[in-house]
């Protein structure tokens, strides 16, 4: 049972997923893509909460049971917030669908991991567990980043064609800004 060392805030910021999502907030906000900004904001908060709480939770859970339920619970809260945003059309539909599929994948991995840890002594899931969760995080970041990248590509195309007008950027997800 190791001690839980408190990390300073700068160290927390250096976590790559949190850093990338904060950068995405800045990019999407600057490009006036409101939907991408909402999604990046909620994702950054979710990563930050998970990253700050996980150490304390691991220390207080020596039997390795409730940590899996805790991570799944955090992800479910994230999903519920996203569902509320989806209902009020604050995020893109395909993004919510993709995140739901990724969450199903992640929950399934956790559901396999829990009995494996106690019945089979990590025999089955030890080879792919860390890889699967990292893959999940990277795919979430890619889903969050895609509309921003598409907006940037659209801007570059507009510049190249010489049809860039500052007040008339109604395409590429900046639709809500016009109302």
């Amino acid at each position: 049972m190791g001690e839980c060392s408190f990390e300073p805030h700068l160290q927390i910021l250096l976590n790559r997923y949190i850093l990338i999502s904060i950068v995405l907030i800045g990019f999407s906000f600057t490009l006036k893509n409101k939907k991408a900004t909402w999604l990046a904001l909620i994702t950054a908060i979710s990563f930050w909460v998970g990253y700050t709480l996980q150490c304390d939770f691991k220390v207080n859970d020596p039997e390795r049971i409730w940590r899996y339920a805790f991570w799944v619970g955090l992800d479910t809260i994230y999903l519920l917030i996203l569902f509320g945003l989806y209902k009020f059309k604050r995020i893109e539909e395909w993004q919510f669908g993709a995140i739901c599929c990724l969450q199903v994948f992640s929950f399934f991995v956790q559901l396999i991991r829990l009995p494996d840890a106690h019945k089979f002594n990590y025999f089955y899931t030890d080879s792919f567990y860390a890889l699967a969760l990292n893959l999940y995080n990277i795919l979430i970041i890619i889903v969050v980043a895609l509309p921003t990248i598409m907006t940037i590509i659209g801007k570059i195309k507009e510049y190249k064609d010489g049809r860039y007008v500052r007040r008339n950027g109604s395409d590429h997800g900046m639709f809500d800004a016009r109302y």
Partner: protein
Amino acid sequence: MEDMYVAMGLITACLMLAIKFGHTVLVTLKARYVAQGSINALNLLNEDQMIDVITDPKRQAVARLSYKIKRDRLLSKSKIAIANAVAESR
């Protein structure tokens, strides 16, 4: 050991919730895709063929949905046009 089963039950409940949300969204996306295809098909029809499609009860639901999407798109286009006109007049 009972704790493990409780935690597994909670994880399963969350998994089912995620499956429910994902299913809802994917079904909506598929319906939108189908309606988009039917809009494209309706645009290619002439008037008599259009009447055939509209009076066919099997296709009425799809036609109604495509009409709704088309109307929404026209409304949003007119809103953009008005906003651009106001911006230019200033």
